[in-house]
């Protein structure tokens, strides 16, 4: 990248800068007009100077005055219209108006052009920086903090956008203005002109010097702010460690110290800035001072006439502001130049990947080659400790080979070299004679998979993460309708103007062939196969059951789930499952649902009826009043409050029982106790209105079957059922979207798949009800062939930031599945199964090995336990960064030595 911001701007925005410059020059004509027309209006239009001798004057005379070349020669094309004073005034006034409008339009156009150019350049710069991140050598990420990269691209280059528009125009324009004024002054008086120039020169020399420290401080401010961003991100990343080690206050100390330093820098900055401003003001007033003094002296002594001095003063009036702005511009220039340098310095590490290695492939990626040959490979972090020491190895890409060794044997580094995660410091890695490190990334991405010890997942759905490795190129362009196509075309044109690639993220990037499918339709079986290989299918299935499906988007699936509901309820009628599920019946009170759920008899959509909101909802209140239920519910609330006070009073407030079981939080309990004491056994009628609302929330959460306080008898059930009907019948249209009612014949898009199939609630207190019904649901789904569809829904589950919504083992399994679904020619498993239990490790290894053997694909298994190597054809034994032995397991076992030792200790 260019070291100089100016060179960078000029290189990429030259034509636009020229256009803007021309617009600015053209605008001056109209600007001049808008200044001269008022003079004519006043002199001729109002005061009538030109009409003193003639009642009318010619207007719009069009003539060519050649008197400069041929004295007296004037070619007149048009004699003009004769206008009287009033007509003249009207016409000139409109001309003035037109000039003002044109002037304004010019300003608008110029500013828009400048803005667009600036934004384009900003976009280009940001893209280029991001592009560089993708080409950083892997080791560089151990040195830079991600938050710092983000602030640099996001915040630090931002001011550049504003400056770029003015980078060339501003100095030319202001310089032109200043030059005109100076020339005018010079024409009036040489002496005064020279004085003005000298004073201006002094200003232009002194002020930037005063501002130098400001710039230095500005740079410090930028770096310290960037580091602060890095530190804050560290706190978020290491928050568990901070809590576990009780280091919160040490962190506070560090941040406070940093903020102190930033404050100091910023305060110094203000001091220096205002000092510079002070001198700037003084110096700019020094010129009029000199004109007054010297010009006055000349006028008094008769060297100059008074008019000329006033003229100089008037001309000078126009001088300080362009000069000041020029100085400001210069200041800004240095500031952004520093910012620019500061940023790009961070984006040119040694050993960046050449751009063509990341080219977008034209068609399907070619195969990897047949044989990897490592010769004398050395890897050393600091040049002293050698993690790999002259490793030479020939490895057919179709080989199934295990690498074993102790903890510091270098086996993991070997795995990283094979995935190009680590660049060797010496030696060579060749694939069929070609340099392994010069193979384009897409070939490697498609043909070689690598799974390390920890997996990073993107905060997307399980599916998006799983298919991440198949997205090497846009395979099928997105289809747009006419209107959208036009929009997209302009969008891409703009992208190209800013040097961004016109790649479409909406296209289908998934290379189905890599996964062994022909298109989106038959991808699911491939996904399920891979999930089974890593034993993740059960987990995704569970996620699917807890997921929701919009019936409008997937009517077919909703229909099938309804079938499952019917089948399940058929089975439930059988004696084996009697009493495990209480089905939803709109004519029955459901004892395993809360009062709120019984009243609503549906799933709350949005916030209106969700949670405690239902108790305060005006419509619900009106229904309760209409059915005379409100006071009874409040009475129930009072009864619950009394029980809670009785049960939980003796407990310490931090007892987890509160959170798990109490209807009233530990903080609230004393208030409620106080309320009950004030009541002194009097009934609900004595409770003030404000407290009644609070009591109202309690019965809504009450589940008779679970809480067993005996508050809901047959009569109460009947009355709540009446309220349920009133609620449903009177529901105003505006609230229709706030609840999806339970209806046996309809799919409920707001509820989970499981709730849709179950259409009821597990009865509390039935031993193993959950497990047994879970198994029954699985059976029903399997019979209807819906298991894969449920998995399909589970694939939509969002894994959260860094995949943290999945447990660690599932994250890792998903990482392995992501590598396997590509059916890579060679997969490098670098102790990737270490976090699973021993049996799972072996099963996953066997699964990977079996499919690889079947398809004749290669596996390099860096074993976390040596005995994992047994089923492999080839075993490489490593020690101290070197290959100690190599051969088939039986050969190695016969030879004894390190192999036998490792096997014995595993």
């Amino acid at each position: 990248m260019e070291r100089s911001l100016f060179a960078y701007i000029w290189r990429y925005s030259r034509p636009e800068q020229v256009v803007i410059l021309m617009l600015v020059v053209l605008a001056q004509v109209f600007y001049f007009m808008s200044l001269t027309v008022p003079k004519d209006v006043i002199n001729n239009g109002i005061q009538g100077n030109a009409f003193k001798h003639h009642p009318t004057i010619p207007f719009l005379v069009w003539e060519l005055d050649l008197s400069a070349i041929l004295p007296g020669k004037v070619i007149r094309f048009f004699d003009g219209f004769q206008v009287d004073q009033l007509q003249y005034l009207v016409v000139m006034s409109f001309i003035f108006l037109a000039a003002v409008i044109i002037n304004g339009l010019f300003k608008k156009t110029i500013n828009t052009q400048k803005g667009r150019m600036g934004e384009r350049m900003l976009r280009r710069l940001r893209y280029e920086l991001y592009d560089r991140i993708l080409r950083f050598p892997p080791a560089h990420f151990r040195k830079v903090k991600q938050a710092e990269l983000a602030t640099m691209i996001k915040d630090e280059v931002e001011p550049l956008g504003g400056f770029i528009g003015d980078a060339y125009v501003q100095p030319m324009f202001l310089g032109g203005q200043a030059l005109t004024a100076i020339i005018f002054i010079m024409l009036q008086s040489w002496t005064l002109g020279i004085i003005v120039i000298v004073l201006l020169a002094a200003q232009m020399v002194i002020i930037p010097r005063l501002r130098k420290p400001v710039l230095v401080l500005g740079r410090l401010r930028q770096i310290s702010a960037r580091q602060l961003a890095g530190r804050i991100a560290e706190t978020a990343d290491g928050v568990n460690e901070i809590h576990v080690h009780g280091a919160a206050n040490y962190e506070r100390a560090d941040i406070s110290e940093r903020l102190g330093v930033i404050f100091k820098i910023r305060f110094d900055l203000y001091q220096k800035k205002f000092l510079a401003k002070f001198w700037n003001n003084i110096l700019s007033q020094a010129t009029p001072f000199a004109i007054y003094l010297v010009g006055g002296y000349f006028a008094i002594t008769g060297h100059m006439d008074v008019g000329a001095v006033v003229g100089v003063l008037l001309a000078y009036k126009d001088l300080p502001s362009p000069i000041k702005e020029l100085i400001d511009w210069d200041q800004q220039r240095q500031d952004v130049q520093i910012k620019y340098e500061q940023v790009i310095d961070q984006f040119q590490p040694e050993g960046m990947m050449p751009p063509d290695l990341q080219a977008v492939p034209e068609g399907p990626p070619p195969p990897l080659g047949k044989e990897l040959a490592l010769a004398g490979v050395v890897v050393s972090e600091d040049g002293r400790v050698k993690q790999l020491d002259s490793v030479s190895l020939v490895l057919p890409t179709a080989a199934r080979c295990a690498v074993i060794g102790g903890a510091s044997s270098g086996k993991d580094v070997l795995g990283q070299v094979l995935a190009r995660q680590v660049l060797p410091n010496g030696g060579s890695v060749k694939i069929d004679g070609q340099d392994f490190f010069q193979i384009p990334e897409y070939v490697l991405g498609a043909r070689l998979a690598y799974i390390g010890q920890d997996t990073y997942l993107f905060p997307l759905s399980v599916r998006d993460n799983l298919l991440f490795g198949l997205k090497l190129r846009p395979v099928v362009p997105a289809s747009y309708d006419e209107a959208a196509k036009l929009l997209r075309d302009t969008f891409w044109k703009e992208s190209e103007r800013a040097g961004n690639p016109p790649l479409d993220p909406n296209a289908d990037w998934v290379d189905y062939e890599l996964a062994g499918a022909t298109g989106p339709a038959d991808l699911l079986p491939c996904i399920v196969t891979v999930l089974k290989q890593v034993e993740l299918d059960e987990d995704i299935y569970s996620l699917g059951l807890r997921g929701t499906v919009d019936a409008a988007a997937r009517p077919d699936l909703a229909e099938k789930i309804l079938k499952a509901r019917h089948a399940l309820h058929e089975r439930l009628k059988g004696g084996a499952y009697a009493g495990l599920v209480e089905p939803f019946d709109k004519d029955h009170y459901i004892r395993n649902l809360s009062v709120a759920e019984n009243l609503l008899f549906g799933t709350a959509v949005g916030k209106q009826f969700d949670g405690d909101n239902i108790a305060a909802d005006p419509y619900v209140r009106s229904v309760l009043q209409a059915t005379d239920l409100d006071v009874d519910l409040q009475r129930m609330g009072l009864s619950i409050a009394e029980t809670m006070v009785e049960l939980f009073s003796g407990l310490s407030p931090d007892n987890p029982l509160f959170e798990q079981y109490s209807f009233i939080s530990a903080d609230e309990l004393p208030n409620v106790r106080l309320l009950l004491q004030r009541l002194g056994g009097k009934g609900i009628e004595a409770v003030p209105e404000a407290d009644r609302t609070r009591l109202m929330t309690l019965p809504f959460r009450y589940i008779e079957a679970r809480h067993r306080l005996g508050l809901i008898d047959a009569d109460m059930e009947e009355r709540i059922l009446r309220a349920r009907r009133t609620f449903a019948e009177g529901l105003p249209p505006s609230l229709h979207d706030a609840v999806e009612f339970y209806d046996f014949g309809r799919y409920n898009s707001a509820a989970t798949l499981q709730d849709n199939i179950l259409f009821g609630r597990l009865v509390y207190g039935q031993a193993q009800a959950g497990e047994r019904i879970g198994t029954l649901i699985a059976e029903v789904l399997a019979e209807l062939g819906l298991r894969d569809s449920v998995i399909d829904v589970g694939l939509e589950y969002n894994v959260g930031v860094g995949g943290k919504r999945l447990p660690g083992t599932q994250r890792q399994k998903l990482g392995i599945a992501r590598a396997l679904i590509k059916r890579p020619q060679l997969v490098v498993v670098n102790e990737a199964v270490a976090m699973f239990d021993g049996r799972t490790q072996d099963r996953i290894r066997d699964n990977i090995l079996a499919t690889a053997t079947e398809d004749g694909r290669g596996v390099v298994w860096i074993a976390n336990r040596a005995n994992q190597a047994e089923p492999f054809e080839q075993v490489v034994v490593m020690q101290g960064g070197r290959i100690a032995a190599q051969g088939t397991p039986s050969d190695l076992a016969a030879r004894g030595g390190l192999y036998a030792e490792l096997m014995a200790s595993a």
Partner: protein
Amino acid sequence: MNLNEEVELLKGVPIFSKVEQSKLKLLAFTSERVNFAAGQEVCHQGDPGDTMYVILGGIADVLIDTDKGQIVVAEMQRNSFFGEIAILCDVPRTATIKAREPLATLKITKDMFYRLVAEFPQMAVEIMRELAHRVEDTNQKLRAATRAA
């Protein structure tokens, strides 16, 4: 059965007999009622366990694995409790408990048990007393058995 009836039942259980009514109510409220169908196993010998059960109604068989298969060694009825050994000593279940007829139990988790004991030390004393009684009972039986032998 509602909470108050459960509390009445718990009062009849020896280890809880001296615990205040309100504490028993808390125990009942925070514990899960679990019903077992006839023939269903409550716990299986050798499995890890972290819950104790109080029988609120019905009869359960206590079975022990022997070389000749499972044999019934005892039966348990209302007010009996079992599983406390798993809670206190972290050992696998020492017997299989199977419902002979529909069985209603109160399931007290290890967590809950310790929390209650910590919160109300007097309950711990009652449990100690009860366990001591049991040891004494066993000793007496042992003495009687050795004398008989």
